[in-house]
């Protein structure tokens, strides 16, 4: 035991040991907490993975040495959970019909299809209800152990159980207390609170009556209800008892021979249909090329503009002759410090043609957000505002790393300022910055926030086959199609497009990284 404590302590300071133990304790605690949830959901793979990770972590961090592992394992877990798992899950969803109309599992869908077809006929009698239970049946009496005292609108009283419905006066053993029935035979009256406790059984209780069964509609009312759909478990068909039509399962829905589809359906793997749809659908083909072209224009333009401005400012503020450089630097970081989510919204307001501050300030009437060209300019400007401080910081850092003697040597050789910049500063800078530019490109390629919050993709493209806007990029366009313009959400289709975009961005990044490597070799 003491050996264990020593190992955990590992010669660290008492505070460090305490922290390590409590954090490990928390990890274990979380695992214990989630065990219940995962068992409840029967997610055995997840459970095994979680405990494997927990045990591995505890083992690793109560051990001396293994320093590289201690770095790699948490990072790898991180990667698995936040990168690999989402990609795989998206891939899975893209092969399903998950979306409006298909969000349940099959059992749930069958249950709902039956519940929706259960109706109280318009002429049905509604009863007021008091719930009775047989105390001998214990805490969970089940359907057999409960009875209902039913009062119809004519004040006629019946007693109903799962077996039969009889008028109360025909029953010999009724106990009254102030004209109130408190017991019928072995059954005793329950209060509402007590009735709630047995509501599962109450929900299942069907009191046989002429043409159908009386069932509870709430804790205090009941009525005869009829269902017109039954599920035949053996043959896996849903039968409409009214018309006799049979519905067989097909791709996540019950479908009749005539092609009549019942809703709701369930989530089912339907194969690559979402992908073929992405390539053949007029929805995508329509304005796709325009959106695609602007997507590149937007991403390249954003990277170029932010980099140019960021670099320019970095160069200026790197000039030792400039006073209060610290102050300027702090001020320049402000746009970066504000949440882009909010600033984008604020910009949308500022750029309002008539009431916006920008037009009022410059005394113009520019349709910033309503004209196709101006809207693109606006988006780029807003993105410039949001993005340049990052580039500024990156460039400032990278500039410090360029050896001053190289520049001095160049001066001695008689190079002018431009030559020094173009031949020494910029190439050296690019070695550090190029990967970040690529990352920035990938980020802007999918910069949903800026586009959606500033223009919502608008203004609309006139005469397009599907609703699309001049400033829509692929992600926002797909968002529109998948969530805003159809009959609700279409997660399967959206996932397929997301996978395609992922492939595209991954391809660009891979190519670009190879390109930067060659850049490094030159340097």
């Amino acid at each position, binding site marked *: 035991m003491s050996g264990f404590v020593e190992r955990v302590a590992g010669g660290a300071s008492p505070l460090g040991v305490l922290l390590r133990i409590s954090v490990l304790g928390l990890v274990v605690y979380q695992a214990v907490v989630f065990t219940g949830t995962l068992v409840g959901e029967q997610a055995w793979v997840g459970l095994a993975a979680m405990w494997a990770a927990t045990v591995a972590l505890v083992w690793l961090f109560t051990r001396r040495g293994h320093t590289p592992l201690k770095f790699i394992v948490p990072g790898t877990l991180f990667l698995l959970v936040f990168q690999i798992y989402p990609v795989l899950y998206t891939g899975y969803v893209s092969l399903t019909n998950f979306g409006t109309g298909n969000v349940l599992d099959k059992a749930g869908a069958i249950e709902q299809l039956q519940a929706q077809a259960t109706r109280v006929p318009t002429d049905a009698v509604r009863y007021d209800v008091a719930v009775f239970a047989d105390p001998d049946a214990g805490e969970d009496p089940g359907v057999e152990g409960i009875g209902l005292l039913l009062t119809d609108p004519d004040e006629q009283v019946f007693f109903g159980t799962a077996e039969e419905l009889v008028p109360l006066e025909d029953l010999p053993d009724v106990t009254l207390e102030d004209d109130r029935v408190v017991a019928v035979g072995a059954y005793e009256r329950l209060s*509402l609170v007590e009735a709630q406790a047995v509501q599962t059984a109450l929900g299942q209780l069907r009191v046989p009556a002429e043409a159908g069964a009386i069932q509870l509609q709430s804790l205090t009312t009941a009525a005869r209800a009829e269902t017109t759909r039954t599920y035949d478990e053996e043959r896996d068909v849903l039968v409409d008892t009214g018309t006799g039509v049979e519905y067989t399962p097909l791709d996540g829905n019950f479908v009749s021979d005539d092609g009549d589809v019942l809703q709701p359906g369930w989530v089912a793997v339907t194969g690559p249909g979402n992908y073929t749809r992405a390539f053949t659908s007029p929805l995508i083909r329509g304005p796709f090329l325009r959106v695609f072209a602007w997507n590149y224009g937007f991403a390249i333009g954003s990277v170029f503009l932010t980099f140019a401005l960021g670099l320019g400012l970095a160069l200026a503020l790197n000039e030792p002759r400039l006073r209060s450089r610290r102050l300027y630097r702090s001020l320049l970081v402000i746009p970066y410090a504000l949440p882009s989510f909010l600033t984008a*919204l604020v910009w949308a307001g500022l750029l309002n043609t008539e009431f916006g501050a920008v037009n009022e300030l410059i005394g113009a009437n520019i349709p910033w957000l309503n004209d196709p060209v101006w809207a693109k300019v606006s988006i780029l400007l807003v993105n410039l505002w949001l993005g340049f401080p990052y580039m500024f910081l990156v460039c400032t850092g990278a500039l410090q790393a360029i050896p001053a003697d190289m520049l001095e040597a160049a001066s001695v050789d008689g190079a002018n300022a431009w030559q020094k910049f173009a031949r020494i500063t910029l190439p050296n800078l690019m070695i550090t910055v190029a990967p970040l530019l690529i990352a920035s490109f990938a980020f802007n390629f999918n910069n949903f926030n800026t586009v959606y919050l500033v223009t919502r993709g608008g203004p609309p493209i006139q005469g397009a086959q599907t609703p699309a806007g001049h400033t829509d990029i692929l992600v926002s366009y797909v968002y529109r199609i998948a969530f805003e313009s159809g009959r609700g959400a279409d997660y399967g289709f959206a996932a397929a497009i997301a996978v395609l975009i992922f492939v595209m961005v991954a391809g660009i990044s891979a190519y670009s990284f190879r390109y930067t490597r060659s850049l490094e070799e030159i340097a």
Partner: protein
Amino acid sequence: MKRHVLVMLMMVLAVIATACASDDATTDDSSEGAAVETTDAPEDDVATEEEPAEEEATEEEAATDATEDDAAAEPTEDAPVARADADLVIWADETRVQALEPFVEQFGVDNGITVALQELEFDEIRSQFSTAAPAGEGPDIIVGAHDWLGELVTNGLVAPIDLANAGEYAEVAIDAMTYDGQLYGVPYAIENIALVRNTDLVPDAPATFEELEQIALDLQSSGDVEIGLALQADAADPYHNYPLFTAFGASVFAVNDDGTYNPDELGLDTPEGLAAAEQFGAWVESGLINPSITYDVMVDSFASGNAAFAITGPWAVSQEDPPGFRAQGVNYAVSPIPSIQGGTPEPFVGVQGLMISSFSEQGLLAQTFVQDFIGTEEVQLALFEAGGRPPALLAAFDQVADDPDVQGFGESGQNGAPLPAIPEMGSVWTAWTDAYELIYDQQGTPTENFQAAADQIRNLIAEG
């Protein structure tokens, strides 16, 4: 070195927590021990909420509203709501939470149970419910609008309700809450838009829309008001433009004999629809309809006396924060939108009500709550006080029928038709909004824009 280890361990903790939670999209631990009467859902902390939630009462706003507030509720940013740990959980928006709270508490005491009211933004309720309910994390009851039914029933998320006293409610309210012959909600309020005028500037209601146009333009050009007519239609939204569309005899979808909408016959590019589009373009050109008026500008300008007319709903009148028409003390009157070229404007009528989750483990209790409790005059009147919308229960409605606002909006609503709840309506909003936006921007002719929108919508419906 030690610090690195610590940081990494904390990250691992987060990793594991997320790994376990990512399957069901909701985390359990945040709700543990939260047996409180009222719990605020996390995203209510979004402090940018400026419009009253009820402004978003209708589907089209979910789809098209480009206001700041809507975007703040942009789904990718939200953490899902966890179910509170109470016997009965109700999701409602801010206004309804405040109105329902005392009654809900009473219901809890009467029945010896705990009831939690969780506050969400109005449109969040629907989207969060769709994710949370199948995962077993959803509420037992939601407070929502009838036009959600198409989606919710198609998804199998709401349970049928049997209402013995359906005759005691306004017929339109029960009809609206009925989907495919089955009742799915207990209605508590009816809402629609109408014309609100500043009685200091315009003492008498104009008899025709042409007269209204004259008055509005005169007041605008004489400088008495900044805005003649403030139409609540930012992002060019078809919901608020709808009466100006139907006055020409057009309708979004053709109407079957039984009053349901026929999704196969779109009304946008019928001769009537195109005539409405052309006239709308003419109003934009004449300056009667100003494309830059957002909801906030509309409320602000009318409440401060800078607009002569507004076309909006009860929400703008009763809104408290920022102060709406009543709170600002402007003298106003509500009346139906006057006839346009002899045709009657028919606004969309929306019905609000309570629906029960089909995943509720307290189904019977939830049924008891909505059947016996929400259908009382007391509760319906309290909800009226909070939202300004006329009650759906006739007995409650009679008590407030003398209220001039109720009369005005009610009269306007009598000309109206229920907002379609069919799922195909989801294909309409974006394309139609785009068409209006192009008219606002004066790009292409209104006819072209409406024809293009109709083609887009047919494409979308065909794709399902």
